[in-house]
């Protein structure tokens, strides 16, 4: 089949091609990443020194809320779906996703969902200002009028994620090339299938939570209203029943990316493939029984605290298996340190730091000190930025030749890496200290004693923001004027997309399934 497709805007509006849709997802998430990043810059500028400098406290709260929502639902999740669209069909030898039209729809919902959400910034009463976790009653009784736009936006992005997840599961279960058994699938595919199952299990619960908010706000129900017999703490239980699996939704595909890249540049097979699969599955299963560790301070009985503390600490076991497997893969390998590998190694190290602070937070007795402080902010930014986002960045560098047929500039890639690596630590490491010293999160002003740590973090954040603009520059430069890539730019790379396809991958691939032995 020739590379026949409509041109211009129609190509993108009507496309059912997994590569086109993957690219749109990736660009969409990149745009959202900069919008959310700009909000982070506002936050860090305000926190550069104590006192109120630039913004009103209410606008500051809108910034923290929107930054979280945009980054979680607009940047990280769509970027992972973009990678899935591009890679899963090629990695399992399928011609396309199983449900191409639904694929188109699930992407095109997103721009509308986020236009709705972002438009609330310009409304009377301002954007949602209750934090990305939208705890009741802040979001019900006290939410601004724009909360309804937020609710509709969450519904739409939820539908989009669910459709994307169904597509991944159907593709992987029904479209694998002959001979591609489940335990031969690349780990990226495995982590995505497990992520997809998490998505279809918990996104509907989130939809239920925002629906209850909507009826509480407008239709006289009292799910979360104590006056009518409801309970605001129940909101937190329902939210975190979604929210904890959600954090694994954001990180598991990045685990898959690291498990592809590290073996390629260590020139060794991945150590413990089967244990990686089982570890990922157990992380996913455990994620359903740990949600209340986000709420240790709501007044749970001792038995509840103990259960959620121990269950949470259990997660460190399969996660440890994964980290040790990555290290063992590198052990005595013939390693080279191209940009994707640098990002993958930084991912392993920095994600582990985030994991350790997670274990600290999992301990109920000490969590009473850390709860709602900057220590929590440091923890989840360590697992999200150098975790999920470095994972995606590594994937972009690794597969960019496959997608575009062009090679990025290695020197610029290395500059981008070291620049991000220093900036990300400068931004988020001091937050551990200000948090342990008691600085609360989500405040525009703070005690003088935290001034130095905040100044460091703000300087780091500005550098980090610039480094991502540099990343955008590198990507555009590669697409426009990059050197032509060889068909196999990484000699250690394995998998159908490298072994059987040229660079760039043709518009239609694997119309006849490849042979897998």
């Amino acid at each position, binding site marked *: 089949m020739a590379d026949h497709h409509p041109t211009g805007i129609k190509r993108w509006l009507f496309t059912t091609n997994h590569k086109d849709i993957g690219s749109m997802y990736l660009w969409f998430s990149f745009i959202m990443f900069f919008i959310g990043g700009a909000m982070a810059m506002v936050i860090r500028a305000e926190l550069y020194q104590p006192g109120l400098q630039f913004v009103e406290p209410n606008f500051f709260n809108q910034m923290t809320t929107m930054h979280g929502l945009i980054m979680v639902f607009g940047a990280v999740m769509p970027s992972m779906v973009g990678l899935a669209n591009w890679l899963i069909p090629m990695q399992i030898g399928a011609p396309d996703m*199983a*449900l191409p039209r639904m694929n188109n729809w699930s992407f095109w919902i997103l721009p509308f969902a986020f236009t709705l959400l972002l438009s609330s910034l310009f409304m009377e009463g301002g954007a949602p200002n209750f934090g990305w976790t939208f705890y009741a009653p802040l979001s019900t009784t006290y939410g601004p009028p724009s909360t309804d736009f937020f609710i509709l936006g969450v519904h739409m992005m939820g539908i989009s994620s*669910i459709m994307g997840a*169904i597509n991944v*599961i*159907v593709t992987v*279960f*029904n*479209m694998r090339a002959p001979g591609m058994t489940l335990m031969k699938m690349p780990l990226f595919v495995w982590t995505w299938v497990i992520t997809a199952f998490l998505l*279809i*299990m*918990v*996104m*509907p*619960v*989130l*939809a*239920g*939570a925002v629906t*209850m908010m909507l009826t509480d706000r407008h239709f*006289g129900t009292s*799910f979360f209203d*104590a*006056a*009518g*017999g409801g*309970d605001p*703490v*129940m909101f937190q*239980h*329902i939210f975190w*029943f979604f929210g904890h699996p959600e954090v694994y939704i954001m990180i598991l595909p990045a685990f898959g990316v690291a498990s592809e890249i590290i073996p390629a540049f260590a020139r060794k097979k991945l150590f413990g493939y089967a244990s990686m699969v089982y570890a990922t599955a157990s992380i996913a299963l455990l994620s359903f029984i740990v949600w209340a560790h986000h709420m240790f301070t709501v*007044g*749970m*009985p001792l038995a*509840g605290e103990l259960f959620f503390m121990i269950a949470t600490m259990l997660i460190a076991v399969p996660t440890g298996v994964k980290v040790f497997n990555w290290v063992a893969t590198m052990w005595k390998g013939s390693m080279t340190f191209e940009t994707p590998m640098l990002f993958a190694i930084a991912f392993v190290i920095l994600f582990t730091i985030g994991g350790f602070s997670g274990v600290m937070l999992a301990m109920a007795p000490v969590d009473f000190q850390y709860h709602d402080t900057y220590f929590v902010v440091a923890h989840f930014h360590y697992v999200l930025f150098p975790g999920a986002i470095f994972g995606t960045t590594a994937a972009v560098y690794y597969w960019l030749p496959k997608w575009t047929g062009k090679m990025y500039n290695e020197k610029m890639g290395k500059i981008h890496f070291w620049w991000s690596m220093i900036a990300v630590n400068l931004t988020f490491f001091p937050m551990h200290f200000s948090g342990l010293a008691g600085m609360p999160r989500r405040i525009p002003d703070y005690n003088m004693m935290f001034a130095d740590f905040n100044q460091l973090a703000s300087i780091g954040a500005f550098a980090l923001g610039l480094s991502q603009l540099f990343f955008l520059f590198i990507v555009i430069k590669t697409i426009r004027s990059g050197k032509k890539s060889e068909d196999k730019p990484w000699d250690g790379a394995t998998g159908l997309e490298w072994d059987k396809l040229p660079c760039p991958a043709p518009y239609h691939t694997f119309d006849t399934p490849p042979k897998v032995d």
Partner: protein
Amino acid sequence: MSEQVTNDNNKKLVLRLLGVVGGMFLFGFALVPLYDVFCEVTGINGKTRGKAIYQQSMVNTEREVSITFIANISNGMPWEFKPLTRTMKVHPGELNEVRFYAKNPSRKDIIGQSVPSVSPGEAALYLNKTECFCFDQQTLLAGQEVEMPMKFYIDSEIPENINHLTLSYQLFNVTDAVEAAAGAAK
């Protein structure tokens, strides 16, 4: 595999997965009653039960448990609201009565609903109320004041380690909600 077979397989799997999605959406709502049942059975969350019937055969005069009463009003509620007894010592099994004072100093008639909460949470299982203003809504006319009785006893089975408990009432203004519901019913 022919294209037709693949399509059928896809359809089957999609329907199953949509079933999971629908089921989980309903499960989200099912969490609401599940949560209440769970809290009632285990007594966590400090939610007291409904009306109890006094049926203690034996009063444990050896033990004394102290109980503190707290009254708070929420935003948008102009009433004065306070317990007339701050703290008292009671024997498990004995029936006691305390009174709460409420006054509506505003110029409007207002309907109030108080919501109880017990701390520590597990003590909620052992605090039984035979009569409480929190079982119903109260309507106070403009300027009206009342003393509201509350009768309770502490179950003699209360664990040894609970020697002090706090019963807190949060008073909400539900006038608008009640009128809206009445309007809807018309």
